[in-house]
């Protein structure tokens, strides 16, 4: 039980740190790092749940795989978008992306 709780708390704190990062960072890449941390927290949760509560449900493991995919793909497309942005603007600073508003 304790292990589960510890793992879940770790997941929760990773979530908190990731959330903080996503909200506080000005740079696209740094925001992506925040997202990665949130997802890492999610994976920790999933593995803990699977291992300690539902080892028979392999969909838990499956879900972890999917989360990994998500991490990778978001990163890939994020870099694609970032590259495009960088090419035409010279930076991926969010503070500099404020033409569209209202």
């Amino acid at each position, binding site marked *: 039980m304790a292990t*589960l709780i510890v793992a879940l708390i770790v997941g929760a704190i990773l979530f908190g740190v990731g959330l903080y990062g996503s*909200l506080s*960072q*000005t740079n696209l890449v*740094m925001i992506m790092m925040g997202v990665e941390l949130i997802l890492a927290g999610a994976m920790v949760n999933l593995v803990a749940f699977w291992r300690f509560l539902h080892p028979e449900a392999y969909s838990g*493991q499956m879900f972890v*795989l999917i989360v990994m995919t998500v991490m990778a*793909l978001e990163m890939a497309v994020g*870099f694609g978008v970032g590259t495009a942005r960088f090419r035409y603007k010279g930076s991926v600073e969010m503070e500099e992306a404020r033409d569209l508003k209202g």
Partner: protein
Amino acid sequence: MLQTIFVGLFGIAAIWFGVVVFTTSSMVRSALALLFSQAAVGAMFLAMQTEFLGVLQIMMMGTEMSIMAIFMVMYMMDPGGLMGMDMTHQKRISQVAGVLGALVVVGIVFLVGWGSIAGSVPPDQQVHGLGIELMERSMLIFETAGITILTAMIATIAVALERRQ
């Protein structure tokens, strides 16, 4: 007990490096910190007897984070990527949000009665089980993930490549 300690230790490491990601003032260091954080998460998987996923995690994150570091350096136009700079805004309120988020989740962790703890599953059985899952129930999900990867490739290429003409 031992397991708990290991999980806790790796967890603390993951969190520690996670925090470092946003406290260090260099991009490359951030990327490395994230790499270590993710690796620690992988280690947690191993500690929780989920070997396949743990190994996978460590491998994937290794490559992923190196790519990230490269891009980081590229975008910052900082060849070394070691130049210190502040890249945060609304820091205070973000901290509040982060802490609050974590507290909420921790609260939920404690509020819910999680029921009995199950025994561990041997690694070979795990892989078998995952394989069955992949090929039967979750086949469609798996395929969809594949399609998503394809889409991501197309999307990335479509966006990232320079315009012709």
